């Protein structure tokens, strides 16, 4: 007996980041068009943290955003969207439930491990269990996939999807899937955007502990300065390479989400009728350019091609300077957002 063919008309649009891309694509399907930057801003995704006590493959974690999944939950909370989220013990149950929801005509978001997604380029397939995709149909043994980082929809075999949904490790994703059950199409984007903006400004300016928020950038600069002495040349270069990857690799839209955030500020300037936000968007973009410049010089150092003046001290100075600019920027944003 052949399986029924079920393909939901789903408008896939490419995005820079998987979580915000899935939000934007799912919301458009449910009649609430929001751009990726708007999803990022409302979900107040921007952050900075450098956590020497939390290591992956022996390298301290540096992050330019809030925790995975938080953008989604902040976004849905601020717009009054109801979401059903489920995890499973048994892969077969997880696939049956997916089929059941698809049969209702609803596209389904889910967490996957990039290591087990055969359609992605090999170079990006590490064990990272936090990649969001949308499944919007099934033909025979293949599922139709909207992977936000890709330019078009793709397909995955059922057995491959099971592996990707049930990858073990950090975190154990257990087939987690989610789909909106109620999306108010008259949702108040203005209030939500303002709340998101205020939250980011607050997170960046007032989070306690030296490693979080804009002051965390200076904290990392202090560590970076001693990398070569403390870790030796090889490991120092690895740590530097890791920093570049966290900042620039697939998913950040450039400069550790700073450009996506700038795009949000620009949209918010119109939405909230607040022209100064446009100026701030351009300022954020200029700070983003400096992050890029830092990554460029760090890349030269990693490759052993750096000019003599590019040293760890030099990079640390540059990073500390970015930290001072972001501190001033978010303080100003914090003050300004209060008046809106």
């Amino acid at each position, binding site marked *: 007996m052949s399986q029924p063919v079920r393909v939901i008309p789903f408008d896939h649009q*490419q*995005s*820079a980041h998987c979580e915000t891309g899935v939000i934007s694509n799912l919301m458009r399907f449910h009649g609430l068009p929001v751009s*990726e*930057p708007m999803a990022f801003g409302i979900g107040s995704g921007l952050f900075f943290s450098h956590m020497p006590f939390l290591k992956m493959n022996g390298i301290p974690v540096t992050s330019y955003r809030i925790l995975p999944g938080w953008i989604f939950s902040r976004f849905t909370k601020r717009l009054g969207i109801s979401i059903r989220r489920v995890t499973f013990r048994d892969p077969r149950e997880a696939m049956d439930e997916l089929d059941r929801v698809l049969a209702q005509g609803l596209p389904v978001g889910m967490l996957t491990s990039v*290591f087990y997604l055969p*359609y*992605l*380029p*090999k*170079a*990006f397939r*590490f*064990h990272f269990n936090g990649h969001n995709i949308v499944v919007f149909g099934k033909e025979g043994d293949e599922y139709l996939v909207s992977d936000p*980082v*890709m*330019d*078009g929809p793709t397909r995955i075999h059922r057995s491959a999807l099971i592996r990707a949904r049930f990858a*073990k*490790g950090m975190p*154990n994703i257990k087939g987690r899937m989610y789909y909106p059950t109620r999306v108010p199409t008259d949702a108040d984007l203005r209030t939500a955007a303002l709340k998101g903006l205020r939250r980011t400004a607050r997170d960046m300016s007032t989070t306690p502990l030296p490693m979080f928020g804009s002051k965390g950038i200076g904290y990392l600069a202090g560590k970076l300065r001693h990398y070569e002495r403390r870790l030796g040349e090889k490991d120092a*270069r*690895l740590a*530097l*390479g*890791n920093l*570049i*990857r966290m900042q*620039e*690799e*697939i998913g950040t*839209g*450039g*400069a550790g989400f700073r*450009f*996506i955030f*700038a*795009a949000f500020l*620009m949209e918010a300037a119109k939405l909230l009728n607040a022209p100064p936000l446009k100026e701030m*968007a*351009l300022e954020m*973009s200029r700070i*983003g*350019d400096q992050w*890029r410049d830092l*990554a*460029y010089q*760090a*890349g*030269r150092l*990693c*490759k052993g091609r750096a000019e003599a003046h590019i040293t760890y001290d030099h990079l640390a100075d540059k990073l500390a300077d970015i930290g001072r600019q972001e501190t001033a920027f978010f303080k100003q944003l914090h003050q300004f957002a209060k008046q809106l």
Partner: protein
Amino acid sequence: MKKDEVPQDDANMLEGKFKVVKYALNENGEFEKVPSVGWEPENVALSQAWDVIHERVEAARQQVLKGDLSPLAYHMEKNMMDAALLAQHMDLPARKVKRHLEPAGFAELDQALLDRYADVLLVTVDELKQVPR
């Protein structure tokens, strides 16, 4: 970043499958999504990360050939796993997996466990029992 500054440094990291998008300022002073095939520092950092993995795989292969480790160790490294992660996928205690990483422990494996290891590590049972020479 302006639209015409979005880097296009192709190191075939994306295998020509698609381009990623970056946000950049266009002629009208607004942000738009601009496709990119890659950027030199990203390419450097990415290949550096892969070099580390390839070194580990090769070191494991040498140890298997010397008889210090079982072929399982090689296939585990190829899948970028450590004993703890492999144990989770196998639903076994890590200490058992560590035992199977030794040639003597591997020799004791029954067919059912060999099948499961092969499935988890994406190889056939025949492939699991050897390493490339």
